Structure formats: C-alpha cells, structure tokens
C-alpha cells in the first residue's frame, strides 16, 4: 500500500503535466490561434534550441544577479533578525519600517535604486535583495522568539549569558524558521533578478540576462522565444529551490522532526 502510493505521488505531476499539454494542443487547434499568439510546446522547445546560446548566457547572467542578491538577503536577513530578536525595543522601533520597505512597490523604488546603485548588476542585485529580504527577516525573527520556554529556563538556571543564550540556544532553534525563509527567498530571487534586468538591465549595454531577453524578444515579437525564456526562468528557479532544499536537508536531517522517517 505504502509503496504504490509513493510511486503514485511521483507519477501525479507527470500525469497532470501531460494533461496540461494535451489541453494546450486542444485549445490551440480548437481556437485556430496562430503560432505567434499561442505557440505549441514543440514550437517553444524548438525556439529554445534555436536561441540556446543567448538563453544560456542570459541565464548565467541572471543567475549571478539572483545569487548575489539572495546571498545578500540571507546574510543581512540573518543579522537583522538577530537585532530584532535581541531586544523588544529594537523590534518595536524597526519592524514597522521593515514593513514599510516591504509594502512599497519595487517598481516605485526602481528609478531611485538606479539613481543610487547605478544601472546593471548593482541595481539588479539591490532589487533582488529588496524582494527576498523580508521573508527571511520575518521567519527568522519569529524563530528567535519561539524558543521553548523550558530551554530558556535551563539556560537561565545555568547562569548562561545573553550571548550564550542567543548563540547556543535561540539561533540553533530558529534554524528551521530561517531555512523556511530562505526557501521563500529562493523562489523570489530569480524573479527579482529578472524584473531588475527588465527594468534597469537594458540601459547597461551589457549582455542583459533573461529580463533583458524578455524586453528584446517582446519588441521583436518573437513569442515562442518569449515562452522559451519563461521556461528557462522556471528552470533557474527550480535550481535555486533545490539548492535550498539540499541546504535544509544538510542542516536539519539529523535532528529535526521534519525528517522523521521509519529509520528509528
């Protein structure tokens, strides 16, 4: 029973994907839409193959911006959460402004970012950071505040210093939360980088990245290539998410209940 259900779980996404492709062809045939409005999956794969050199170079460029912004968000998010976790006054004083930062649409900030960070990679990294920063801070802060009260009592009983309590107790017990924040950020970082490239990448005169390709293919009305760019962006996102899943496993699998299996 258990084995068949597991196989079934693996087959399900493939099945739904096939169904979706079938539906896609159905709509295309029934509606009589032309290739430049709704290309078929095969046409998209063909376009991807045709544009493979540009797509790969662009994906590499986007990956660089996304990774840099993601790492910056991971590091600054961790540090900011530590500050917020240390004191109630810092939390009360800073958290509303973090919310303000999060709620200001990035599109509004983009011209300002270009003005300050400059166009090209610095601007792209800043935008990526801005988009992926908040979920990390919010999760990690929640984690630092969710420490088991008996564990805290244990540390107090042992006359542990505030620093010891933070480093040996609160930070490790917040790791599942931090990693959950990173997982959300991993889905956002490539999107942030592509958006950044679309908005500020084209003025740099460099290779551009996927966001610039979107701009370029769109003006040339290369719709299958546009779909191929979307596909490439998806794959890039999957790589980011898979990397964080691997990190999550490496950090937590030995002790965390989320990795509880039938291995005793």
């Amino acid at each position: 029973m258990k084995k068949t259900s597991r196989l079934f779980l693996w087959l399900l996404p493939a099945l739904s994907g096939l169904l979706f492709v079938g539906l896609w062809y159905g709509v295309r045939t029934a509606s009589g839409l032309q290739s430049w409005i709704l290309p078929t999956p095969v046409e998209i794969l063909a376009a991807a193959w045709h544009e493979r050199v540009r797509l790969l170079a662009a994906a590499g460029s986007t990956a660089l911006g996304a990774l840099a912004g993601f790492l910056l968000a991971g590091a600054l998010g961790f540090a900011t959460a530590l500050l917020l976790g240390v004191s109630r006054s810092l939390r009360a004083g800073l958290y509303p402004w973090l919310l303000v930062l999060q709620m200001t649409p990035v599109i509004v900030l983009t011209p300002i970012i270009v003005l300050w960070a400059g166009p090209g990679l610095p601007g792209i990294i800043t935008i990526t950071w801005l988009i992926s920063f908040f979920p990390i801070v919010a999760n990690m802060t929640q984690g630092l505040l969710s420490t088991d009260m008996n564990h805290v009592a244990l540390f107090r009983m042992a006359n542990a210093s505030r620093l010891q309590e933070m480093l040996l107790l609160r930070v490790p017990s917040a790791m599942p939360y931090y990693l959950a924040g990173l997982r959300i950020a991993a889905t956002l970082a490539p999107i942030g980088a592509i958006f950044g490239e679309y908005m500020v990448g084209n003025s740099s005169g460099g290779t551009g990245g996927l966001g610039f390709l979107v701009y370029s293919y769109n003006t040339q009305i290369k719709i299958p290539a546009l779909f191929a760019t979307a596909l490439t962006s998806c794959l890039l996102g999957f790589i980011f998410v898979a990397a964080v899943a691997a990190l999550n496993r490496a950090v937590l699998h030995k002790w965390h209940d989320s990795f509880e299996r039938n291995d005793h």
Partner: protein
Amino acid sequence: MESAAPIVKFTSLKKRYGAGPLILDDINLTVAPGDFVSLIGPSGCGKSTILKLVSGLSPGTEGTLTVLGTTPREARDRQAFIFQDATLLPWLTAQRNVELPLRLRGMAAGPRAARAAEMLALVGLAEVPEYYPRQLSGGMKMRVSIARALTLDPQLLLLDEPFGALDEMTRNRLNEELLTLRERSRFTAVFVTHSVSEAVFLSNRVLVMAANPGRLHGEVRIDFAYPRIPALRERPEFQARVNEVSRLLHRVEATASP
C-alpha cells in the same frame, strides 16, 4: 559546619503573580542536607511554583527564602533542575547535551567530553553518545537529562515531575537509578510528583499540599533506611505509608474549594 545549615529554608513565604490570586500562602519549610523531600498535592497547589522559587526563576512576594545559605539566584551554580520533559536540545547529540552546562561554564572541550562520557556511563547510556534526542526513547531521554543535571555535582537537585510521562516499569527503574545516583553524588533533592508510591519509595519526607491558595497541609516521614531496594514496594509497611499519604491527599481534595 555547612552540614548543619539547612539547604532550603522558607519562612512565611507568600507568592502571587502581579495582582493575581495568592498562589502560595505562608510556606514554612526547612530542607536539611541529605533530605529527599517530595511535594504532592492536587493540581494548582503550587508544587512547581515552589521549585521555581528555589531555583530563582521566579521571586517570592512576601517572606524570605534562603537556598544554600544565600539567595536562590546566588545559589544557582550549586543546584540543578530536571524538567517535566527531558528538555534536551534536539540539535545536539546525547553527549553534547550532557556537556552543555560545562560548556556554558567555559570548560575546555577535552575535559568536558571526558566528564560527559563519564556521566552518560553512570546513567547506563555509554553506548549512545552520538545519538540525537529524537532517536532515543522517553526513558533514555530522561536519563540523559539526569546525567546533564548531575555533571556539575549539584548540592541540590530540583525535579519537576520528571517521570510523569513514562510507563510504570520505566518509572520504577528510573526511581531506583535515581536513588543509586544519590548514594554516589550525595545531593539533596526536592521532588514534585503526582504518584504517591513514587514519592514514598524515593523520599524520607513526603509533604502533602492543598490548593487555593497553595499551602503545606501535612507531612509524612518515611523512615526506611537507604539504600532502598525494589522489594521494598511489596512490604506491608511500605503500603501503610502509601495509604497514609493517600488519606491526607483525599482529605485535602475533599476540602478544596471547587
């Protein structure tokens, strides 16, 4: 000279949280060196609060409390607390959990590991130092917790219903092991429990508490000599003591306001 001084001394102590109701009323209690005192009573009678006061986790409202000749907080480094659940840090191995109090004291890694290994062997867990808590059974976790509490050789051990979640066989075995450890380490103990037979088996004094507000209702002296053996539980004198404590408990529960 220290052996003459009480380990814990409550004098007319009252406790309330903020403007809330009185949790503990007029507690007068002296725990002598070598005592194994059990606190038993209906839920809400403030048994655990007494442990919190002694450990300095929570201050008294009125009256005085001295622990090991000083304030509860000052006495912290000579006492240890064993919680209701094992409260092991899940991201540390059994060995590293036992090392924790030593690490917090700044002891170097080498001697720290040696001491922890010794303690684990003492509670019969020499085989599992690299296991994480989730790989251990409830009884094993509690043994690690006991080993951790005893690494610093405390003079006073506070136990808050440590075996409440275990099955009876494991609980009995751990009771016996705790007494064996006590023969060796000579700590004084204050033990909170819901089990009358556990209290009688372990203690030389069983204090029955009443609720609303929490207060000491009566005391039963248990004068069986230590070391105590498991067969003690089957002797009629043991049963007589259990009955005596149970009678006191029934009286307390009958008079409790609803």
